[in-house]
């Protein structure tokens, strides 16, 4: 009950934290919200890209000479198939027939006999395991080294590298959030300490009339909660339009790699937790700082 009394027992309107803390928290919440939304977007993309590289894979082999039915070409195909079958994570390997190749290319060149005379690359359809996919990078290197003219469909290889990069970026976004939280906590700690130095006389009086440390700490904690909530609301209010703008820009890209960059309402709910957590963090940091500082006073 005394917790929510309108007036604090300490003269808080006299200290600098009133201006400094909300501004600091606003900036931190702005950054943390952007970092978290970055992590969420990457998480989305990663989920989709990981789905994409699961399932099937295509390996192409360039014919050894203009005659697509030559022995040298057949040897290349055989060797490629053998390497694929040896690779862990590969479930099934099937070279495409000449008819299937012609069907694939028909939309571009039309159904002409010309196709049969072209030195078209030969394609091998590979089914790979979902749970234990092969290392595409390594497989590509091995094929390149051992079979002339053989290569793994490089879209997939490229994607697997993008995924690794995105993984790293997601971790970076999380690290940024951790750093920002830490910085906000430090700001609260120092603002609280400065406030305690200013209010030293009043704190002494509270002590002398029998106040426990927790009573004094609660006053600072409630104040930090108030200032933190104010700053957090401003920070989130600034971040939200930026995110909405970015989301709209991404939507105009239509499809492709960035198709799922927008936010669902679930994502917004997660993002809205950022200012709430920031305000609570400010409260906890202030409470612990006061307890720690007071335990060193008589």
């Amino acid at each position, binding site marked *: 009950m005394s917790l929510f009394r309108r007036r604090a027992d300490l003269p808080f309107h006299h200290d600098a934290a009133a201006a400094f803390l909300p501004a600091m928290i606003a900036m931190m919440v702005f950054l943390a919200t952007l970092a978290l939304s970055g992590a969420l977007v990457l998480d989305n993309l990663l989920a989709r890209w990981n789905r994409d590289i699961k399932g099937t894979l295509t390996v192409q082999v360039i014919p050894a000479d203009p005659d697509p039915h030559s022995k040298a070409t057949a040897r290349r195909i055989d060797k490629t198939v053998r390497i694929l079958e040896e690779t862990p994570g590969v479930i099934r390997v099937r070279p495409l027939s000449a008819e299937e190749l012609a069907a694939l290319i028909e939309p571009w060149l039309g159904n002409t006999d010309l196709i049969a005379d072209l030195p078209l690359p030969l394609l091998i359809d590979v089914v790979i395991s979902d749970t234990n996919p092969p290392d595409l990078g390594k497989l590509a290197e091995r094929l390149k080294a051992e079979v002339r003219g053989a290569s793994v469909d490089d879209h997939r290889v490229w994607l697997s590298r993008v995924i690794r990069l995105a993984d790293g970026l997601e971790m970076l976004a999380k690290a940024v959030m951790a750093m920002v939280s830490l910085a906000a906590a430090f700001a609260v700690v120092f603002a609280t300490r400065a406030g305690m130095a200013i209010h030293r*006389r009043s704190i002494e*009086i509270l002590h002398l009339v029998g106040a426990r440390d927790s009573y004094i700490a609660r006053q600072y904690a409630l104040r930090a909660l108030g200032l933190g909530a104010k700053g957090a609301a401003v920070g989130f209010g600034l971040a939200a339009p930026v995110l909405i703008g970015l989301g709209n820009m991404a939507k105009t890209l239509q499809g492709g790699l960035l198709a799922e960059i927008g936010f669902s309402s679930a994502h917004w709910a997660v993002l809205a937790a950022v200012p709430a957590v920031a305000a609570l963090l400010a409260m906890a940091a202030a409470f612990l700082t006061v307890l720690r500082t*007071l*335990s060193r006073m008589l």
Partner: protein
Amino acid sequence: MKSDRLSFGRQPHADAAIVRFDNVGLRYGQGGEILHDISLSLAPGSFHFLTGDSGAGKSSLLSLMYLALRPTRGRIEMFGIDATRMSHAMLPRIRRRIGVVFQDFRLLDHLSTLDNVALPLRVAGVRESEIARHVPELLHWVGLGDAIKVRPSALSGGEQQRVAIARAVINRPDLLLADEPTGNVDDRIAQRLMHLFIELNRLGTTVVVATHNEPLIRRFPFPRLHLHGGGLSRYEAGEIPERTEAEP
């Protein structure tokens, strides 16, 4: 009359003492001792004046009693508990049994008279309804009934002093320590405040009043503790320490 162990009050049994000092010494920093070899014991329900020249250490002696200072040597017991080894967490419980009137009042300037006096009750978790009942009543009694919502800075020195006294007695302390509590008020109010202390004393509060006011001391039949040259002597009511002529 001067002795190493001063034991006085109605119940001289040492173990029951409210305050007990054993060879207490106090120094600030590297300076010399301002208090040395202080031994005393205040029985429950006793009333003492504390006298001595300015700078003789009266405020320091009181600070030791309300646990704002720790002695550099010796042993202090408050309510039978060793104060020199008391943990930080125990201090509030002891301090809630002590009411202090500071020479410089130490009121919180941003709080009203009512909130200042209510402070000891609030920190002890007393209900607001009880605070609303008791605090105005006491403020009326000390003649500040009209100043309940006023801040200390708008009050005269004498009025602030009465706020400080009201704050010290609001929770009916077991021990009341008053440092020059009548220094800023006229004689009539000084008498009235003394009667407040005596009334509390009758109800069981042990009282120590530090003062320069010789006429006041003479008017009331209480023993005095006199600080001189860093040491403490005790005089019965009516006895006058040597060299008090030098005091204002």
